[in-house]
């Protein structure tokens, strides 16, 4: 692995260096091409300048020739010749010398006086010699006769001379005299004319050399008086090389690089001057001026930096990616292990209740005649089945949560019902474990809220169930449900707090308690272990609802869970409730309950007195009774420390008689004390928490302030004789439901699928069926389709028949799907007969 890593790094470095090398080579090649192009252009400019030079030389020679022809056209003395030239010669910088050549004196006259004088026109070339060989003077027109660079003997200035042969007459004897005309031009003036024409070559310099490579015009960068000597001084060259260079300079145009006096590279472009054999124009330019800016070193640096960055980035990314892969591999391994654990756990958790169901079934079958054994077995089978159902529901929920398919189906619901449901659910375990159970509500102003009741129930029940489950016998569980103002007037904030004195949780466990299948292990509670999915589901659902869940726990001392949920207030027409002029005494040792109940009754307009002591309550009731001003209602808690509720009721009846209604309240299941409570004199029972509506309806019912139905929940005689159509493809399910319904005097008709149900309804008379229980997944036509068809039946009364889904598709979206199809309700399988009967009653009461 390490070797592969180094290999990758090496390959990266090699590729990076390769790219940089390529960029460098490419840039260098581009630069070379650019230089070559510039060299070619520089050569072209040099050739052009050679032509300009030729034209200039021809022009100057033409002037000289014109003078020569004129002077030679008729006899002139030297004075006349010089006078003529002086008259036509206007440039102050130029001069003309006429020098006799036939007597070797090399003396003559100048058109300009000697420097420092005004009238000394005599000039002698004796000392320096004629700057041009007489025999080299061509007489034909068009030829250039220009001298070497020499010092003008009249002013000491380096000059050139354009020459012509003259034939003069001697002023004394009239004899013919041979002379030469020198049109003398200072080389400095020529240098000023030879300026490079292009701005791009502003650093370039021009020189003109003669056939011996001596400078005629010398640029500043040129050294020595001779170009070849200059070249030799700073460049390695042998004699053959020198000769070859001389030949090139005088026979062809071209260029070459050389080292200048400062050791720098420079380019010399040359072109022989065609108009004057032996002369060559040399153009000089610094090498740095040629390639300056042509290679984009910034680009090279940029590429190199980018590659370096890429290398670093790649290596960092590779390290990160490897770490991530390791992490994912660990996670996958953990997931695999979790899956194995899950399967193992599921196997265990499913087999356990299944074992109980099957074993107890066997026991019951073998003891059919022993009613006690059968009843006990069936009760335990029911418990095991319920646990199994819970387990399956949890598994399905966690599956949906983890696959991200869990969604919320908000609807209007009653928080009072939720609380009552919680109390009811808690009762069996509270009773079984003799747990001190308190349920407080606080400032519940809005009973109807808009949220997913199913999920809220699930969350609240999970937390409460855990508290009850992990609290040992004799411990206490306290529930607080509080309404706080929401962020907006349309919302409220529900705070649900469950505190127990149970086993608590370790810090280590709390770190991953919201993970699936996390269960606190404790020998004390091994027998009550749950699925290990509840908290995971709860957390996910709270998150989904945008709420928070907090937990404080200490091992061995207990746990407090606090769930905070924001939810909208439902648009619900508030029921007109008032208990004005009702005088109420509340007796409870629970100060919180006293406060909340007093607050609630005050808000209903009642006159409330409270006491936490049964004895004090008796005193207060006695005083009132003596004053013939009995309370209208007395509300007594069942379990109080000094005197329990039953005793208080009993004494109070003895004290004040039977006129004053007494309501016994409790957070416990009061079915066991129902008889003794009635015997003691209690008129009614209320389960905690004491919601506004609950109190109102209870007091209202006792005082007959308004008519209220008094229906016992367990009495279903009112719905006997109703007729239902059951669309169910599974015969067993049909038989179960049919038998359960018949036990309550309800007639049922079976439809094997949706189509049959539709047909039966379509062919029936209105009112033939009061309700339809519709399975969803059925052959031929499923329940959804069947419902849609029924709702579309021509007979409006038949089409409007209530339809309740009875399906194993128990998720909220399944419920929503059913309701959207036109169904009126939803009951999840396995069917709980109470829910079925409740739905039938709603039909009976036209509440659907």
């Amino acid at each position: 692995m390490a070797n592969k890593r180094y290999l990758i790094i090496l390959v990266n470095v090699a590729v990076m260096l390769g790219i940089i090398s390529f960029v460098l080579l490419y840039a260098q090649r581009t630069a070379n091409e650019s230089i070559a192009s510039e060299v070619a252009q520089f050569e072209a400019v040099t050739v052009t300048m050679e032509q300009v030079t030729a034209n200039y030389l021809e022009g100057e020679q033409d002037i000289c020739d014109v003078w020569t022809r004129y002077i030679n056209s008729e006899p002139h003395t030297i004075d006349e010749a010089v006078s003529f030239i002086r008259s036509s010669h206007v440039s102050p910088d130029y001069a003309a010398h006429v020098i006799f050549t036939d007597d070797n004196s090399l003396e003559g006259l100048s058109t300009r006086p000697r420097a420092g004088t005004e009238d000394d026109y005599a000039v002698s070339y004796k000392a320096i010699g004629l700057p041009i060989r007489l025999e080299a003077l061509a007489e034909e027109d068009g030829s250039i006769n220009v001298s070497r660079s020499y010092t003008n003997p009249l002013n000491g200035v380096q000059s050139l001379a354009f020459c012509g042969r003259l034939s003069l007459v001697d002023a004394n004897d009239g004899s013919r005299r041979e002379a030469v005309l020198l049109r003398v031009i200072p080389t400095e003036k020529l240098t000023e004319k030879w300026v490079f024409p292009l701005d791009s070559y502003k650093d370039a310099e021009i020189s003109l050399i003669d056939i011996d490579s001596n400078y005629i015009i010398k640029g500043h960068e040129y050294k020595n008086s001779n170009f070849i000597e200059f070249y030799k001084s700073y460049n390695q060259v042998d004699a053959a090389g020198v000769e070859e260079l001389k030949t090139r300079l005088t026979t062809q145009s071209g260029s070459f690089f050389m080292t200048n006096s400062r050791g720098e590279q420079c380019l010399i472009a040359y072109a022989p001057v065609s108009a004057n054999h032996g002369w060559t124009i040399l153009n000089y330019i610094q090498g740095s001026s040629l390639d300056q800016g042509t290679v984009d070193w910034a680009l090279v640096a940029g590429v190199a930096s980018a590659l370096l960055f890429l290398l670093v980035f790649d290596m960092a990314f590779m390290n990160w990616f490897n770490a991530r892969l390791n992490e994912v591999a660990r996670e996958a391994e953990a997931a695999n292990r979790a899956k194995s654990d899950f399967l193992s756990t599921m196997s265990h958790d499913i087999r356990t209740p299944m074992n109980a169901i099957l074993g107890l079934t066997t026991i019951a079958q073998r003891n059919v005649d022993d009613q006690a054994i059968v009843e006990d077995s069936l009760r335990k089978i029911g418990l095991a089945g319920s646990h199994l159902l819970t387990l399956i529901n949890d598994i399905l929920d966690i599956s949906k949560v983890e696959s991200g398919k869990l969604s919320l189906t908000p609807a209007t619901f009653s928080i009072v019902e939720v609380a009552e449901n919680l109390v009811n659910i808690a009762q069996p375990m509270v009773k079984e474990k003799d747990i001190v159970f308190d349920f407080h509500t606080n400032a519940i102003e809005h009973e109807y809220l808009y949220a997913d009741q199913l999920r809220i129930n699930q969350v609240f029940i999970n937390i409460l169930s855990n508290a009850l489950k992990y609290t040992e016998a004799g411990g206490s569980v306290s529930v607080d449900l509080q309404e706080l103002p929401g962020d907006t007037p349309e919302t409220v904030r529900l705070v649900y707090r469950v505190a127990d004195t149970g086993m608590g949780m370790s810090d280590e466990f709390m770190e991953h308690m919201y993970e699936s299948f996390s269960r606190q292990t404790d020998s004390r509670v091994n027998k009550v272990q749950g699925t290990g999915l509840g908290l995971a589901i709860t957390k996910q659902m709270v998150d989904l609802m945008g709420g928070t869940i907090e937990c404080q726990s200490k091992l061995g001392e207990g746990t407090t869970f606090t769930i905070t949920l924001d939810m909208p207030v439902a648009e619900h027409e508030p029921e007109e409730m008032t208990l004005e002029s009702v005088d109420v005494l509340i007796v409870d040792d629970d100060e919180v309950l006293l406060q909340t109940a007093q607050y609630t009754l005050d808000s209903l307009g009642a006159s409330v007195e409270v006491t936490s002591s049964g004895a004090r309550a008796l005193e207060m009731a006695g005083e009132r009774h003596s004053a013939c001003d009995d309370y209208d209602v007395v509300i007594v808690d069942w379990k109080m420390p000094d005197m329990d509720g039953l005793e208080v009721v009993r004494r109070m009846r003895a004290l004040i008689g039977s006129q004053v209604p007494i309501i016994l309240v409790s957070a416990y299941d009061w079915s066991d004390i129902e008889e003794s409570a009635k015997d003691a004199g209690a008129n009614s029972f209320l389960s905690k928490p004491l919601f506004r509506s609950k109190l109102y309806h209870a007091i209202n019912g006792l005082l007959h302030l308004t008519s209220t139905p008094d229906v016992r929940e367990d009495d279903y005689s009112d719905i006997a004789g109703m007729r239902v159509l059951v669309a169910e493809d599974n015969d067993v399910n049909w038989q179960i439901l049919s038998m359960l319904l018949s036990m309550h005097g309800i007639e049922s008709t079976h439809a094997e699928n949706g189509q049959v149900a539709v047909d039966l309804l379509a062919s029936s008379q209105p009112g033939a069926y009061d309700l339809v229980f519709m399975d969803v997944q059925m052959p031929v036509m499923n329940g959804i389709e069947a419902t849609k068809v029924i709702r579309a039946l021509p007979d409006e009364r038949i089409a409007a028949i209530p339809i309740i889904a009875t399906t194993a598709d128990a998720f909220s979206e399944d419920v929503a799907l059913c309701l959207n199809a036109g169904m009126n309700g939803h009951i999840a399988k396995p069917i709980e007969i109470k829910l079925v009967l409740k739905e039938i009653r709603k039909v009976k009461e036209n509440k659907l």
Partner: protein
Amino acid sequence: MRKTAARCMLALSMALVVFALVACGASPSGSSGASSGQAEEQGGFTPSLDTATKCRVSVVGSYDNFEALEAEFDKFNEYYPDVELSYTKIDDYNNLVSTALDSEEAPDIYFAFEFMLDSDDYGTLFERAEDLSDPALNIDLSSVRSSLLCKDESGACPMLPIFSSTAGILVNEDLFKKEGIDIPTSYEELLAACDAFNKAGYPTPILGYNVPSSYGNLVGELMYGDASKDSTMVEKLNALEPSAGEYMRPTLEKVSDMMEHGCFNIDVCNELEDGYNALILRFFEGDIPMALSSADTASGTAKRENQSEAFSASPFSYALYPLTLTDEGACLLDKSSVQFAVNKESKNLDMANEFMRFLATPQELNAIASAKRLLPVTSGLSFDGLYAPFSSVDPARIISTRDVGLTDDATIQFRVAAYQVANGEATIDEAIAGFGSYTL
């Protein structure tokens, strides 16, 4: 461990990238940075003018080319990059330099020679010369040997010696070695060596440029040696008194003596048409044991080595030795060569003086002498390379020609008389009789 290795790889790659960039980013012809650094290290010169000054400074002289000076131009440009300096040779310099100074294109700096100071012909040359000893110019002349500094009658220093020179003989050391002949250190040994070479088949033991002006190389030691000991002689010689001609007799006798010993082959010497260039090339032929030469001539040998096919084919070692025509041992005639004067009417006088201030530093005077292969004018006279044989000269035998005080006219008498005797144009007596009448 793996992290360390990865970091090393990363560091290596970064180093490679940086190296590549630095290597590629280096200018292909860029040595300007080094030059600049050198300039700073020189330290002997600090610019006193605006270094952004743009102007042209021209130097004129008699040298065909002067690359040693052009090298100084380059150095000066490191301080003043926009000053364009140029050197131009003037034909027939001695006669035309005054004319050049009169022209509108008058040079800013020009060659001057010691002999000119003594001649009325060059009066205007020095009238136009800046006094380089003027404290206002801040030119430090202290590094120049005082015996070389020339002062005019007013005490002004119109020119700065750039090189010093001497006279001697170029010796083909390999040829002496080959023939088993010792290089002469006295007059007797010189005659003996000439005899030996003649016998060995070398008809021209000593080569010389056979024109009167060149005979100073032959007679200089005798002339200045005697004069340095006799101030009366100097006075009489300078006065060109006819009787002073007798002072030439010892010298002329030795010239005649050497001719009789066949030290010179006049015919061969007459073949040297274009002066010292021909002399050097002829010497490089390899069959000339000795050649009369000034240091100015000897300085041109190196450049002409590859111009000589014979020397290129068969190079040999050579050096300039003292020419000893006495028995007093070798002597060194210390005389100035080229000197620079500044045209005080220069259009760029400040910059011309600034250049002279730059050139007067010991570093530059030594550098330009070294480049020119001439003896420096600075106080610490040292001999190396071509002039190494002079290192054995007794300091007491270093004769400053300036201190001796012979005028140029006086030396001309010696040179022409020696030429005539050597060429058989006059006897010794006739040559002495002509004293005072000779000109070049």
